[in-house]
């Protein structure tokens, strides 16, 4: 049963290996899709009995899965599935025209599976050091996905991404060192820095532990795109190819936030209250929301717009983490909703950008008439993104507001509502002329089956979770939220 | 008994017009037209044929009919001194005001029906001033209602007695003044409008009916007479003490004549206000009525 964790790690590696021997680009994409699907299958099979068999460990406790990581695993696999399904649609023209060489295609797929592997490692690592290793590896692997097309802008973005995130993650490592240092010298079990033990150990040096959390919050926060460390994010997201940007904001940011959650749980447990962490969470959440709002107002590039939306929504999730159990519940639900929605919007943006030959919003006009499928995708996903019912983000934001009210966090509530209100106004102003209005018929508006499948599937999920939240999922999320809180 | 009021109004209303004209003539040192002149005019008009504007789409014909119908029903609602109205119920004065409004509405449409810019001008002024007069009228009525503590026209007018004058004379006076101003505006008399002018640019009511003729004009003229009679009757009834003493009916008629004389006096003593000033007059009326209410409240 617990062997499934190892399989999770093996599948992508085997995929990468297999890719060396594939000579046809189409097959490469199929192969990576297959790998992801296999992974998902494992999740379904191995963890179908989740509520009972969680948490479980393997490999001498080095690999560990509980509700929190399982939830993120689920989100990750959804994002990767959508991405792998969409990739051939996105790259088709360039493959046909040879703008994307065979080796480039191979490199792309290998890096794609590589990032899947590193993120899986991050999620499954029980040792927080290993978690860090996985996270840093994510940066290195995905950096080259940004510059799969070596355009100057892409290179610049890739350089900034690489250097900023490496520095940030380096700080996170200091955080981990401090956690280790804050342990009592004699705590035997905790020698291995296993989260399972850290989250129950006692006798920490609290000051050091707090400092440690600050380091890892800033460090991983850089990777998670929390303002003011988010500066790399709009560049990388806007320059990466569609599926990659989707994967970036769809899950990579959440992976970084996941690391923060783990640290937060330790700290909360050690301090016996979530006062300290929730203050920091709320501050970063609000700052991110406000900063992103200010950039969304005056945005011209659609992918940058979406990137700043990611900053906003990661801010919202972080805010939720600071608002107690209900808030954590909302935050985790929001993670799923945001990932689904943002993947869809990045797909649409990427495809429309290709069709219109520009990512400048001024150039994209009347997409609903020009390219109906992607027009619908863009319109619906952006509407969902700014919290229009009946899409699921409305529900998670409603839960967030509820949490804020229950916690009497009025300042947070007001700032959040104002910020998201500004975002709503500005984003809608950007969206309407892009999606509606007289649009010329585009040549490449044909939409293949996988494209339709992606759009319909993601929209369906968004609507489904907006109107119906099955009881098992609620239970599951409640458990995960409890883990995030780290308090009994 | 109560039918008497209606019959009286319908018969005597043109007389009030001629009283006004007579008093104006006397003040101007002329002999003036015979007392029954308005009746003669009506008869003459009823005998005539009619000419219509070729632009009109039928409202010119519709307007006088509806207007007169509305005013006829007003006649059912207004008591004459001791004579109660044929129809009276709580809040009937609201219906009265709105029936007059209906008449005004169709008259204005009739004016616009001819597509003449002058009649449009008149309609627009009529609409504006009427809108300003309404609040004053209702506040005045509210004042009476609060004072007499009943909400039907007949009830209010027949309960006002010497005691009321003793207790709150000032507010009653204010109400009377306000009502008189409304009365002047509603019936297009000086200082709001000059019924005898011949300069279309300055008219309000008269210019609206430029294109009416024959029986239509007769209906309009009769409507005018009826309206001025009814509103004067309300003012007079305020002054008539309660009770069904037939003497009071005489007093009432005298008061009506006095009101006619007063109108004549005003018309021959002052000139029409500039149109810019008219709103101030009407707002002033509203202020008076409001003041009256305030006085009642503080008591």
């Amino acid at each position, binding site marked *: 049963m617990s062997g499934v964790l190892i399989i999770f790690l093996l599948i992508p590696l085997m995929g990468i290996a297999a890719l060396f021997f594939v000579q046809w680009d189409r097959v490469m994409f199929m192969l990576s899709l297959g790998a992801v699907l296999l992974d998902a299958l494992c999740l379904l099979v191995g963890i179908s009995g989740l509520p009972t068999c969680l948490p479980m460990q393997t490999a001498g406790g080095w690999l560990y899965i509980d509700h929190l990581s399982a939830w993120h695993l689920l989100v990750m696999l959804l994002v990767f599935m959508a991405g792998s399904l969409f990739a051939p649609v996105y790259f088709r023209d360039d493959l046909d025209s040879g703008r994307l060489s065979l080796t480039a295609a191979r490199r792309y797929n290998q890096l794609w599976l590589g990032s899947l592997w590193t993120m899986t490692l991050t999620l499954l690592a029980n040792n927080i050091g290993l978690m860090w290793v996985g996270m840093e590896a994510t940066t290195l692997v995905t950096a080259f996905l940004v510059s799969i097309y070596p355009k100057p802008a892409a290179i610049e973005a890739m350089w900034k991404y690489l250097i900023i995130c490496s520095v940030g993650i380096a700080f996170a490592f200091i955080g981990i060192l401090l956690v280790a240092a804050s342990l009592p010298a004699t705590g035997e079990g905790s020698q291995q820095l296993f989260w399972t033990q850290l989250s129950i150990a006692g006798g920490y040096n609290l000051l050091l532990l707090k400092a440690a959390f600050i380091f890892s919050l800033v460090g991983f926060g850089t990777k998670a795109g929390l303002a003011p460390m988010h500066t790399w994010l709009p560049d990388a997201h806007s320059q990466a190819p569609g599926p990659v940007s989707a994967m970036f904001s769809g899950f990579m940011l959440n992976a970084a936030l996941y690391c923060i959650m783990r640290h937060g749980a330790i700290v909360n447990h050690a301090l016996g209250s979530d006062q300290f962490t929730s203050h920091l969470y709320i501050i970063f959440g609000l700052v991110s929301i406000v900063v992103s709002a*200010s950039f969304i107002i005056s945005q011209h590039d659609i992918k940058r717009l979406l990137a700043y939306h990611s900053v906003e929504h990661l801010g919202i999730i972080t805010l939720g983490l600071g608002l107690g159990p209900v808030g954590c519940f909302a935050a985790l639900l929001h993670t799923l909703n945001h990932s689904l929605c943002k993947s869809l919007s990045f797909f649409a943006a990427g495809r429309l950008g290709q069709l219109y030959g520009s990512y400048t919003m001024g150039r994209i006009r009347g997409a609903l008439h020009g390219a109906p499928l992607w027009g619908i995708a863009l319109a619906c996903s952006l509407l969902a993104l700014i919290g*229009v019912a009946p899409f699921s983000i409305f529900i998670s934001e409603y839960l967030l507001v509820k949490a804020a009210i229950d916690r009497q966090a009025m300042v947070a509530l007001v700032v959040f509502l104002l910020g998201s209100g500004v975002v709503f106004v500005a984003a809608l102003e950007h969206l309407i002329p892009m999606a509606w209005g007289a649009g010329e018929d585009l040549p490449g508006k044909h939409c293949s089956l996988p494209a339709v499948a992606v759009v319909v599937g993601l929209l369906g999920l968004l609507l489904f979770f907006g109107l119906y*939240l099955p009881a098992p999922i609620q239970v599951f999320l409640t458990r995960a939220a409890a883990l995030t809180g780290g308090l009994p | 008994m109560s039918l008497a009021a209606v019959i009286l109004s319908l018969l005597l209303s043109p007389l009030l017009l001629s009283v006004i004209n007579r008093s104006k003539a006397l003040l101007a040192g002329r002999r003036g037209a015979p007392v029954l002149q308005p009746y003669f005019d009506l008869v003459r008009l009823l005998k005539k044929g009619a000419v219509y504007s070729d632009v009109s789409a039928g409202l010119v014909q519709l307007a006088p009919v509806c207007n007169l119908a509305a005013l006829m029903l007003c006649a059912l609602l207004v008591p004459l001194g001791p004579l109660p109205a044929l129809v009276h119920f709580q809040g009937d004065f609201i219906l009265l005001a709105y029936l007059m409004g209906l008449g005004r509405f169709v008259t204005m449409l009739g004016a616009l029906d001819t597509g003449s810019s002058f009649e449009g001008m008149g309609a627009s002024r009529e609409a504006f001033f009427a809108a300003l007069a309404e609040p004053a009228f209702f506040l005045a009525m509210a004042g009476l209602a609060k004072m007499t503590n009943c909400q039907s026209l007949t009830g209010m007018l027949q309960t006002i007695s010497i005691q009321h004058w003793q207790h709150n004379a000032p507010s009653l006076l204010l109400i009377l003044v306000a009502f008189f101003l409304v009365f002047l505006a509603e019936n297009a008399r000086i200082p709001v409008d000059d019924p005898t002018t011949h300069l279309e640019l300055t008219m309000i009511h008269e210019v609206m009916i430029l294109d009416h003729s024959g029986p239509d004009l007769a209906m309009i003229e009769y409507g005018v007479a009826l309206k001025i009679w009814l509103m004067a009757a309300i003012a007079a009834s305020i002054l008539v003490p309660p009770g069904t003493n037939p003497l009071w009916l005489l007093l009432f008629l005298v008061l009506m004549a006095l009101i006619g004389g007063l109108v004549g006096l005003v018309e021959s003593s002052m000139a029409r206000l500039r149109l810019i000033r008219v709103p101030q007059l009407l707002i002033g009326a509203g202020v008076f009525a409001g003041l009256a209410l305030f006085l009642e409240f503080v008591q």
Partner: protein
Amino acid sequence: MSPLILLILLPFIGGLVALIDGRSRIRSALWALAGLLGGLAAACRPVYFVLGTGTPFVLHLPWAMAGGNFQLMLDPLSAFFLLPVVILGPLFGLYGIPYMRHYSGGGYRHGIHWFFYNLLAVGMVLVLTARNGLLFMLAWEVMSLAPFFLVLFHDWDKKARSAAWVYLVAGHLGGVLLLLFFLFLGTSGHSLDFSTFHPLSLSPSFRHLLFGLAFLGFGVKAGIVPVHVWLPEAHPAAPSHVSAYMSGVMIKMGIYGILRAVLLLGGPVYSWGMILVVTGVVSGILGVLFALAQHDLKRLLAYHSVENIGIILLGLGTGMIGISQGSPAVAVFGLAGGLLHVWNHSLFKGMLFLGAGSIQQQCATLEIDELGGLKRQMPKTAFCFLIGAVAICGLPPLNGFISEFLIYFGAVHGQAILPAAGSWPLLLTLAGLALIGGLAAACFVKAYGIIFLGSPRSSHAEDAIETGPSMYLPMGLLAVLCISIGLAAPLFLHLVRQAVTVFLPTFLPLAPFGDAAHQLEIISLVGAGVILFGLGFGLLRYLLLRNRQTGREATWGCGYQYPNVRMQYTASSFARPITLFFDAILKTRVKGGVVGELVATGVGLQTDTPDPLTRFCFTPLLGAISGFLGLLRWMQHGRVQLYILYIIATLFVLLAALAGGWL
């Protein structure tokens, strides 16, 4: 299957089928219409039952949602507001079938339009029946979203796009306030079911705060000044039957919301009634003033919706004051008047918007000063429009007067019997209502007179022809309803009764209903009298003129021999005295009109009155916000070294805070 489920499902399914079978204009419309009619059929029995007996209709379905609960209930208040939704929906839809011909062409997929049209209806039904905060909010959002797409159906028009933006922004911001309202209310008992709210356990000041939230939130939808700004944009931009449905029915959901909120907060308080009256007067007067200043017929009608919402608020506020002051008469008259006006406004405003639609169809313009003399070409439309105009001005013998009379009388009675301190708002009601009535009359004399009378001012108007029956019959039906409410007022008072009773504390006697019925009887009789006398005089006139010669001559031009159509009085000139008088509020922009040289050659005058609140309040506000946030934008300047510096600085600040013991 419970009728409530059918009432929700059938229109939805109809819309869905229409969406699937969306290519054909007629078929999709018929599918949607069938759904709506099904809903109507399903609604009849429960609505009749509830409005008759006053016993509510309850339904509870399973629904897995965090904090959500599928509680439905149809109480008299809901039923009262439900009636226009289910009746007018199909009626306007019927009108919409030929109207949408206007949008025939390649790009249009009519199924989309009809899907969202039905979705709007479904949303409103759910809003009216929902008894759980989250369910209510979902329904509310869906209801607010549908018109967004309906407005955007005509999306190559830039106006429509900006209108849709304003509309959705307003709707969303309002929705946020409502969310706060329900969540704050829910904190007392840990569920959002209406039944679990304990308003009386809250402190009075907190209840005032909650009422403020609800009033503002619902007020946005209802179009109360100053948050009405979406209304004059969205209504003109939408297809006419949609504007009719929005303005006639949807904005009433805001009124329903306010009333529901008052009930949820444990019954009216004096100060709330006062607030309603004051905002009512402001909305009413400003609404009609803005309407007077408009040149576009649909904009004008939209502003009249603001005005009528004001009148409704006046009634409800009066009633609430009555309740809080313990006077049954004032309560009954105020509430009954306000509620009845909700129905009346749905009828005549719907009809007027349909009329506007017909004019737009036949003349391809709604510029009032482009039109004229349409009564001759479009007699049936003209007649219906006239009925609507008389009704909306609240003149007897039509329905508008009935509701306004009730409100008036409530106010007069109240100010007569209530203590001075408590009754000054009623004087406001009285004076305000009178002024509103007068100005409304002015406005509709202008609208009807310039559009339908005189002679055509442009070729558009000249070659207009009457519409087909499926466009004027719905209007005719509405006209009949207006007249019948006017002439059979007591009957309809009886229908309002249960809805009013929901608000009355049990200790208040219901005698006033009897008085009201009696007064309304007389009024209806007098109304009938007006009609009879009118016919009588008409007959008289006919007899007199039968065998006399009646000529037709050119209009008397005061001696000027060569009049032409451009010399007619225009709408702007008709309204000018009033707009000039209130210019301090309206701030009309005037271009030209000055005769420069001695001999005037071609002098043009142009006036337009954009919404002062948008112009002087909201636009600057948004500008200020974006300017303020713009200060942050320098931080993304591209210098990677400084980016790293941000990280270090953040770290340093936090560590300092930690060392300083602030964390």
